[in-house]
């Protein structure tokens, strides 16, 4: 159990640090979350999917 914890923590940390580094680079090179939201996220349907998932979880909890 402890070994798996270690492995999961290390992998998660590496991924998170890599993600943060990539986002930092993106921010320095002119990336913008607002523009990303307007151009990509709002049109991709991902928000609807998240809403659906949240309502499903809510349903499960209420049940």
């Amino acid at each position: 159990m402890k070994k798996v914890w270690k492995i999961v923590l290390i992998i998660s940390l590496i991924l998170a640090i890599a993600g943060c580094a990539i986002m930092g680079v993106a921010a320095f090179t002119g990336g913008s979350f607002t523009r990303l939201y307007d151009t990509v996220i709002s049109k991709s349907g991902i928000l609807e999917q998240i809403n659906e998932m949240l309502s499903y979880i809510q349903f499960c909890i209420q049940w």
Partner: protein
Amino acid sequence: MIELRNYLANVDPQAREEAISRYEAMFDETGEEKENEVIARLGSPARVAVAIMRELDGRPPANPKPNPAPEAGEDESPEAIEESIEEDNNPDGEDTPAAPEAEELEKEAPAEGVQEQPDDSGAASAQPVPEKRLRPFLLVLYIIPAVVIGIPLIALALAVSIAFFVGGVAALAGGVQAFILGFSVSGLIADSLLLFGGGLVIFALGLFVTWFSIWLCASSLRGIAGGIFSLGRRACYKEVRSS
């Protein structure tokens, strides 16, 4: 030596001191350098204790050495010691098998460093052995509240674990989706990088939360079940002293 003394706590003090002083003298003769070698050849303190006890009982002594004979070409002094012990314990030269009592004695042995009990009587006294007996009426009485409290507790732990698990899996899926979405951005590369980075962070979070939910489920169920059982054992068993 402390351990050996503990094993021989119930033996006649005079005989015990004689036996121990014999072994102490043997260690003094060999010196500190060869001490570990001699210990390895003699075997565990339990085996030595069994050999001594058998010798005192007048039974054929067990061979206290579980280890193989030393190879040729080694220093003679430990072998001489080994032979002298063998002669002490087994004057006929018979190779008796290792005593089964040694394992038993090892299991019952007091912890190292525990002070021996003074035995002024001089004879091996029979200590009353505590025995646990089940009380069926109490067991029935215990099972009812244990089930009434235990099942909701287990259900609560399961529900919390499942909620975490669903959240973790959702985060994993979201991370992968954000990563894939990064390829479909037809504008600035910086925006794609934002999605890649965000996807990785969300995936990492999802991985952590998913594993946490699994760990939470396993440890909480084990803890609740273990707690109920150990409480039941304490409540429903009565300790009876029998000689």
